[in-house]
């Protein structure tokens, strides 16, 4: 009986550490589940700036235009936008199917800013603003939905593990 006491204390300590780790992981997953929403918020702010770009940014000088060279045609940028939207949606759907934990929302914001910039320099941003906005919202909504469901699923698994552990400690 006396021999078992240190072993029990050691088990208890290990279980407590395990519990703390599980609680930390649950907290981390909760934070992660909201990352998709944050990416949508950031993209919305970028889109507002893009929408007001004509009022915010001064018109490009002739020198700057000359330095940047001939901009691509708006049809070419639009074709590229469709290809990008199609492949990005396919990749997100692939991640949903495989249950991949990879999060790429923030890199999509970068690509979308590039599209806004291309349209802006071509002088057709006003005509194509809604297309970029719809692309961004679709990709980021799908991505955030995937991240949210994936994280919440993991949270439930960990909560079950935590409940089992708490029962063991209580005993």
């Amino acid at each position, binding site marked *: 009986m006396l021999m078992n006491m240190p072993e029990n204390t050691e088990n208890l300590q290990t279980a407590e550490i395990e519990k703390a780790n599980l609680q930390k992981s649950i907290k981390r997953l909760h934070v992660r589940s909201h990352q998709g929403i944050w990416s949508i918020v950031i993209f919305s702010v970028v889109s507002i700036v893009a929408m007001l770009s004509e009022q915010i940014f001064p018109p490009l000088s002739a020198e700057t235009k000359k330095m940047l060279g001939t901009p691509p045609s*708006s049809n070419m940028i*639009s074709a590229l936008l469709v290809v990008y939207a199609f492949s990005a949606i396919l990749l997100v759907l692939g991640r949903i199917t495989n249950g991949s934990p990879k999060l790429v929302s923030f890199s999509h914001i970068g690509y979308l800013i590039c599209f806004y910039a291309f349209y802006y320099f071509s002088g057709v941003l006003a005509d194509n603003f809604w297309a970029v906005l719809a692309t961004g919202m679709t990709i980021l*909504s799908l991505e955030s939905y995937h991240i949210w469901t994936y994280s919440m699923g993991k949270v439930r698994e960990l909560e079950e593990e935590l409940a089992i552990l708490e029962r063991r400690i209580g005993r």
Partner: protein
Amino acid sequence: MFQNLVVRSIVPVALTVTGFVAISCLILYSILRQDMIDSAAQNGRSIANTVVLSTRYAMLHNDRQHLGNIISNIGQHQGVEHLRVFNHDGFITFSRNQSELGHQVNKRVEGCSGCHGANKPAEQLAVEKQTRHYINERGVEVLAMSLPIYNEPTCSNSCHYHPASQKVLGMLDIGLDQGPMYNSLALMRYRMLIFTIMVLMLTIGGVTALLNRSFLAPLKRLIAITTNDEVSTATEQQLQSGYGELSLLARNYQRLVVRLNETRNALAKCRSCNEEKNKADMER
């Protein structure tokens, strides 16, 4: 709500289909709009060229009355907002609107500044710079074209007073009402919106129907069967009629339940046999 199987299956499909159809419609609309504007500009330039060519004979013969009539008649055509001819100094010499005659045009305004931006006016103007869009005082969206009327050997060699050194004799300025084109674009926008809503409804309806038929209904039956330990004759008949993985799972489960029930019955029978045997032994 998001843990529900139906919602979890439909949300990604609805988002993907609606999103992609919306993106495609918006891009398609933007491309069609640009094509229609380019086509209208092309048409405008063609009309302007026709006017210049039809007035050429009257100009060569300095027939001002004939020229005035041509400008006035073409200017009355539906969709023509303004039609005027300026001379070399920017004075309006012929116009549909008689009250404009003799007025000088500001060379710094859009449409003139393309050539008159520098100290020495440009003699040649790029085609895209000949076109301008604006809303006039009546609130009409106008596509205007300014076409230079160049000096030709026939002009300077004939009875005219234009010297050969003068490259541009004047300008023809025509403005076309863009209202009908923008109305067509608005109609196209509404049609695309209705099309997107229809695609969304059909996709969600189709996915829901398919999911319900091949997955959710069998799943409900499976849940109903697995909730009861007893398998009724009606349930058994239902199980035999089904097909697919879920029906196979239900049949396997039914077999397990039947075996379990048989074992339970056998055990109960055995227990009662033992009890009877013990009773008989005791009585003996």
